[in-house]
């Protein structure tokens, strides 16, 4: 359970990408513009973290050490990679699990009602060695953390 640190350079580059993406957005959609039961198809076809966040009307994601991603350094099999996300950020409303290099980045988005811990564990497919990204939305903004997972080729197993 080690917090994730992103190098400053990496963060700046990610931040500037967001900047560019935001510039073409005429108007920011308000937070939670989508009804809970309406599937956000744009988010689930987005290729990048910034596009996923945009699809949910978020912007300007900040890296946070208050989000913990627990996942294996080396996945035994990319088809089933256990991942747990826990957020210590007050007022966490949603937790999204992204796999940077998957055909669609977003795997799952959990809505955390009042009284439920900002915690979710699941298992996701990771197509190739990639960063796992956890994105947390609160009333105050969007935060993220990431952790690399190596995917190996298997032997015959047993």
């Amino acid at each position, binding site marked *: 359970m080690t917090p994730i640190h992103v190098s400053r350079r990496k963060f700046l580059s990610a931040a500037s990408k967001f900047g560019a993406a935001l510039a073409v957005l005429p108007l920011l959609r308000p937070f939670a513009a989508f009804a809970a039961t309406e599937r956000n198809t744009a988010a689930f076809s987005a290729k990048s973290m910034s596009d996923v966040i945009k699809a949910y009307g978020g912007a300007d994601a900040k890296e946070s050490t208050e989000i913990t991603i627990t996942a294996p*350094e080396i996945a035994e099999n990319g088809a089933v990679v256990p991942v747990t996300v826990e957020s210590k950020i007050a007022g966490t409303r949603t937790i999204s699990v992204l796999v940077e290099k998957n055909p669609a980045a977003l795997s799952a988005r959990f809505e955390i009602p009042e009284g439920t811990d900002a915690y979710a564990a699941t298992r996701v497919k990771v197509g190739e060695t990639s960063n796992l990204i956890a994105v947390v939305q609160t009333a105050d903004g969007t935060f993220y953390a990431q952790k690399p997972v190596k995917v190996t080729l298997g032997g*015959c197993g047993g």
Partner: protein
Amino acid sequence: MKRVLSYLLLSVFAASASAQEIDPTAESRELMGDDNPAFFWETRGEALWKEARGPKKANLSQCDLGLGKGVVAGAYAKLPRFFADTAKVQDLESRVLTCAETLQGITPAEMLKVRFGNGDDQRSEMEAITAYLVSTSKGAAMQVSMKHPKEKAAYALGEQIFHYRSGTHDFSCATCHAESGKRIRLQALPNLTAKADAQKAYVTWPAYRISQGELRTMEWRLNDCFRQQRFPDLQYGSEAAVALTMFLAKNADGGVLEAPTMKR
């Protein structure tokens, strides 16, 4: 000289790397916890075991797996064994086939319509029943009898098959599984002639195979090893399959059953 030196350096590097990474995917398995989809096969298998089926509209609750009629728990830890009614050494799968035929009137061919499952449309009843039966022996220590001459003979035959080199690649089971510390890619290969490895391998089958999203049994494992060796298809429940299972089960004596587990 330079070449020798670099070779030496390389081998030292390789040795230290492998010492650190004996099992690089252990963490991955650890994080998976005990929520194993094998549960779905166990549930289905229990239902199949208890459901009145076949021409005789009977269930399998009167099946004798070696501990007496209807005794399921712990039976797998003592299999394969000699059965007087069939005058054969049988493993779990071949015994279930016998019971299905005698008690329910379901032929082995019918039971084996799907030997190894593939998705929801091709579910294997044998994999489900095996998962259920083995799960009831969780925690039991392997204790395979070698008292009957046919049990001894089965072990000897299994040992012979294990070492028998054949096929286009001149392979045997022993090529991969008779030496400690071997691996294929990141996958450690158990030395099935050494007690600790043999126990660990045997007591962890059947397993939910993550890469396939299916539950696989020892019968499948052997069949797939035969395929990988480019051998002819290993006949399900055959004398050869039972003998090989006998060899592996006996070598695992004392090992505590954990299956069904999860594997890569």
